[in-house]
């Protein structure tokens, strides 16, 4: 009995029920962690196997169809399983999760693991579904033939968990003889035994080297493998396919011997649903409806909690201000930390709701159908159907969207998807749009019924998509030019999403988001506050100040707005006025632009300070709208005309004003090249588009 904590890896095909099992084994004791040195995110949990040993570390790996990896995700998972990287210790036990209702395909991955000799326990998931569809699996026989413990489990009802724990403890750390699942032609067997020097333990390595697409690095080995391949190529044209065919041969024999009536009852229901969901006409209509319902619900349901969070933080800031003596520290606490973090946390409801829908759509099997329906369209711009899901997620927030591009196999396609994800109009832009519409377009309707504001927001979404398509096309035909990757994607059976799994996914996401808000965003909030709060304003001003004071007199001069105007941010705003004036922006909007490069929505709080509203009024936003409406330029004309508002909205749509996005792109592409390129080209695009909007609009006679 080992006294130290065991490390157990959970591996298996996608959709085999890995996550359900992981949740059943670890409960709430899990966290999202990064592998040391690499970008991949994995879930780690603690599982109490028995009372005698400390809880085991359980690692949930990305889904794999085989040990021959094609995507980055798969590569890292394979390395972790086989202990090929020094950063990740080889697991003591690998639990191979196998979907009982789809044994043959799931067994392919298992056969490869059996060949490696790694300690393996098989968990047959969804055993209840297999029994329901009259699938009789002879567990003992299967176990005997495979040479490893096989444990049927029903994760949802926690059936088989104790047996699984017992099996894991039994095999932990014990070496096992590799199983010979593929028997090759005599010629191929000769080459394999030459490369493995006849040692059964080295057989898998020899097989991998011989049949891999690449040659081994080691020069001596390289030559030996090269010659072996040449000899095999002379015997058969398709010599490389031999192990795959042999493994499936073996699997068919094993399954035929241990399973009675391999029949999948769920399929009938799935087929009937598919006939509607992927129907030629109904399919796209349903997809559009699903997207509409998702976004409509997000905006409807998120309103109240967002307002509550906002009020809560405002109340907290006021309470702190009342309690603490006035001074720089109190300002930092209230205006910097509480206001900054509160402003970002207000988006938590929207982000959570989107994740709720995405995990429901994913768990139910609909996401794969969406990719199936959209692949042809995505391919037209050179992308993969799988890019659809990350792009859709980016409508809530580009950060999770960019993180979910890992499923895209081709690195160039992945980067192209990452580069266009920020054009999907995310939830942080929405408050900016809402403010602009409230300030200049409120109450206006088109054809008497449709609100102009709703049309403009819809237009922003469509413009973002259009620009994304154009940029994707350009990128894919220039710097990211590559042949189209294969599109081979499983369409899993429809299943009712499990409440527990969805709740777990939400909890993990919340933690990740809160951690980010607690670190990056906190730091930026403090920095921005400093830019706005320093240098401190004094009673006597220079000539420049006096102009501003008189300008401000109309709105009621106040210490805090004077402070802002003299701050670093205020000075920068005035410095950049000549650059942004052609877009219709004055220096006050310039301050907003500077602050919004950390996060878009901060322009609202910055404008509130610029126009000196909020503190005296209980209705913060409406008073900001009033202040914006009465703001005048030097010549007495209003600052906020419809054209200025539109120009600003387009700038916010196209510019990459989000530190979190930049940080995540840096992490995902593992270089500063792509995030800097992204910020640069999006800024140029935003500037040009706003310029065209404002100047073009003026030429056409709009104001």
């Amino acid at each position, binding site marked *: 009995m080992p006294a130290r904590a065991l490390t157990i890896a959970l591996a298996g095909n996608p959709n085999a029920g890995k996550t359900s099992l992981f949740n059943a084994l670890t409960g709430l004791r899990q966290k999202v962690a990064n592998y040391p040195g690499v970008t991949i995110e994995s879930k780690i949990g603690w599982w109490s196997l028995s009372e005698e040993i400390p809880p085991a570390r359980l690692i949930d790996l990305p889904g794999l169809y085989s040990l021959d990896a094609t995507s980055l995700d798969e590569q890292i998972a394979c390395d972790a399983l086989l202990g090929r990287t020094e950063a990740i210790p080889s697991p003591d036990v690998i639990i191979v999760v196998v979907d009982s209702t789809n044994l*043959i395909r799931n067994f392919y991955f298992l056969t490869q693991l059996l060949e490696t000799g790694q300690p393996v326990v098989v968990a047959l998931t969804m055993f209840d579904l297999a029994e329901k569809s009259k699938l009789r699996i002879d567990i003992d026989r299967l176990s005997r033939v495979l040479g490893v413990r096989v444990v049927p489990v029903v994760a949802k009802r926690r059936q088989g968990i104790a047996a699984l724990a017992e099996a894991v403890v039994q095999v932990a750390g014990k070496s096992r003889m590799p199983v010979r699942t593929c028997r090759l032609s005599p010629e191929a067997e000769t080459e394999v035994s030459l490369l493995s020097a006849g040692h059964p333990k080295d057989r898998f390595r020899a097989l991998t080297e011989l049949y891999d697409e690449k040659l081994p690095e080691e020069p001596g080995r390289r030559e030996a493998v090269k010659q072996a391949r040449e000899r095999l190529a002379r015997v058969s044209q398709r010599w490389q*396919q031999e192990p*795959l065919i042999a493994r499936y041969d073996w699997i068919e024999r094993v399954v035929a011997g241990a399973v009675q009536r391999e029949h999948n009852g769920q399929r009938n229901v799935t087929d009937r649903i598919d006939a509607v969901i992927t*129907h030629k006409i109904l399919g796209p209509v349903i997809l559009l409806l699903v997207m509409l319902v998702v976004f409509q619900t997000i905006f409807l349901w998120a309103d109240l909690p967002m307002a509550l969070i906002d009020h809560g933080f405002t109340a907290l800031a006021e309470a702190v201000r009342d309690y603490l003596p006035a001074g720089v520290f109190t300002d930092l606490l209230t205006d910097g930390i509480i206001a900054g973090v509160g402003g970002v946390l207000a988006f938590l409801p929207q982000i959570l709701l989107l994740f709720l829908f995405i995990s429901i759509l994913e768990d139910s099997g609909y996401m794969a159908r969406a990719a*199936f329906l959209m692949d042809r369209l995505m391919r037209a711009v050179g992308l993969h*159907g799988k890019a659809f899901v990350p792009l859709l997620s980016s409508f809530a927030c580009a950060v999770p969207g960019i993180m979910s591009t890992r499923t895209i196999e081709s690195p160039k396609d992945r980067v192209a998807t990452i580069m266009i994800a920020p054009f999907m109009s995310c939830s942080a832009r929405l408050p900016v749009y809402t403010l602009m519409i409230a300030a200049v377009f409120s109450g206006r309707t088109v054809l008497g019924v449709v609100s102009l504001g709703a049309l403009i927001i819809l237009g922003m979404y469509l413009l973002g998509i259009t620009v994304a398509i154009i940029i994707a096309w350009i990128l894919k035909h220039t710097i990211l030019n590559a042949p189209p990757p294969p599109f*081979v994607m499983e369409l899993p059976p429809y299943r009712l999403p499990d409440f527990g799994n969805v709740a777990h996914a939400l909890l993990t996401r919340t933690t990740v988001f809160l951690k980010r808000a607690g670190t990056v965003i906190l730091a930026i909030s403090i920095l921005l506050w400093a830019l706005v709060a320093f240098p401190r304003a004094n009673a006597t001003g220079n000539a420049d100040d006096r102009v501003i004071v008189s300008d401000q007199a109309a709105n009621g001069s106040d210490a805090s707005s004077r402070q802002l105007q003299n701050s670093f941010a205020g000075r920068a705003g005035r410095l950049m006025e000549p650059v942004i004036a052609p877009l219709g922006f004055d220096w006050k909007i310039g301050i907003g632009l500077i602050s919004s490069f950390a996060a878009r929505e901060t322009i609202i709080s910055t404008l509130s300070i610029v126009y000196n509203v909020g503190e005296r009024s209980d209705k913060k936003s409406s008073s900001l709208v009033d202040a914006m409406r009465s703001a005048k330029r030097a010549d007495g004309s209003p600052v906020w005309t419809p054209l200025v508002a539109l120009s600003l909205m387009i700038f916010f749509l196209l510019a990459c004003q989000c530190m979190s996005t930049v940080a995540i792109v840096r992490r995902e592409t593992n270089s500063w090249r792509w995030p800097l390129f992204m910020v640069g080209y999006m800024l140029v695009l935003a500037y040009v588009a706003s310029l065209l909007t404002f100047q073009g609009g003026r030429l056409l006679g709009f104001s």
Partner: protein
Amino acid sequence: MRKNEQKSKRVDGEPGSLDTLPSGVAARVVNVQGSCAIARRLMEMGIVPGAHIRVVRTAPLGDPIQVCLRNYHLALRRAEARAITVLVGI
């Protein structure tokens, strides 16, 4: 339309590529061609010589196609389906 006529002319016992197989017709895989990486991915998913395969439907825009094999469903583009030779009949 013309494509359909061509498809209906297919004779049992004559191998053809999967992308010309009409929906609902049961077939067996004869071999998988194409580049090493694509052939490997297809075969890992169970498309090996001898496997039963059936086209379920085509996506609204004509590509990709949905196939059924080994009791599960798979979506693949016509370009990949072209690499798979099948024989109609069980």
